[in-house]
């Protein structure tokens, strides 16, 4: 499984949404399932899946799936492969 697939699966499992709906434009607070409580659980799963620890600012800034991809890139996760 590529990293982007892993990240999509993490979003889908954590938020309880269909994998097909995890698109770059998927935004925080745009669906009922991605509220602030769900956001913290999502962060915990992303950190665990990719064995990283995000900065507080990155957690606050993670406003969409695309931004999540960009942030993982900064943590040396090759999100394109």
């Amino acid at each position, binding site marked *: 499984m590529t990293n982007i697939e892993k990240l999509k699966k993490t979003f889908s499992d954590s938020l309880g949404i269909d994998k097909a709906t995890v698109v770059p434009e998927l935004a925080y607070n745009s669906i009922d399932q991605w509220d602030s409580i769900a956001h*913290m659980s999502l962060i915990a799963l992303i*950190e665990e899946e990719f064995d990283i*620890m995000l*900065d*507080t600012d990155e957690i606050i800034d993670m406003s969409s799936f695309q931004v999540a991809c960009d942030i993982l890139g900064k943590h040396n996760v090759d999100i394109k492969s």
Partner: protein
Amino acid sequence: MLTLNLKNKVALITGSSRGIGKTIAIEFAKAGADIILNSSKNIELINKISKEISDKYGVKVLPLVFDVADSKSVDVAYKAIYKEFKQLDILVNNAGVLESSLIGMASNDIVNNNIDINLKGSIYNIRSASRLMLRQKSGSIINLTSIMGVQGSEGQAVYSSAKAGIIGLTKSTSKELASSNIRVNAISPGFIDTEMSKDISKEMYAQRVESIKMSRVGKAEEVAQLATFLASDISSYITGQIIGIDGGMVL
């Protein structure tokens, strides 16, 4: 006799180079926990304590120098903790300063030091610790407030404000984190025999002792035993509580 067991748990105690913090670290190590020691500057001292604890109790000890009031340093410290242990089960927010002043003479430095170290430091540490604890869906956070935060005290308005803030922090975070099986409680000591409590005048010291119904100052070990209870699974249904340990002191 009740045996408190902290085996397989990892505990961070902030401000653990002396006083109550150091004593809590020793009690936790006795109960089998791996320990992260912290000091804002004294690397030699925490390295020495670290060696003493690991030699005596056979637990893993990681000494970390970081300033709890500096959010960036706190972030870096938790990355180091994650790298070393991959888990954090117990946080004791103990690091603190007591700078006294009448309200009319409270300098900005006194206000900032009291609030930054006592209150902001606790917030920053809970923010980072709760994220590690969320992953494992368990944890115990213990905040050190003070009888002054509960009752108020003349000449300590700023310190009392910071310690009262810790009570709000404890109650709010306990509600927010309970569903993830993370407990948050506060210990509210009265007058405890530490180096910090000796910073006051002899008259004030005597006056304080007179205000204690049990007619003696508390011992750091007594506070540490309460912390061990709150850290252990024996207290698994206790959260959001402010527990006084003051021998019946009245301010």
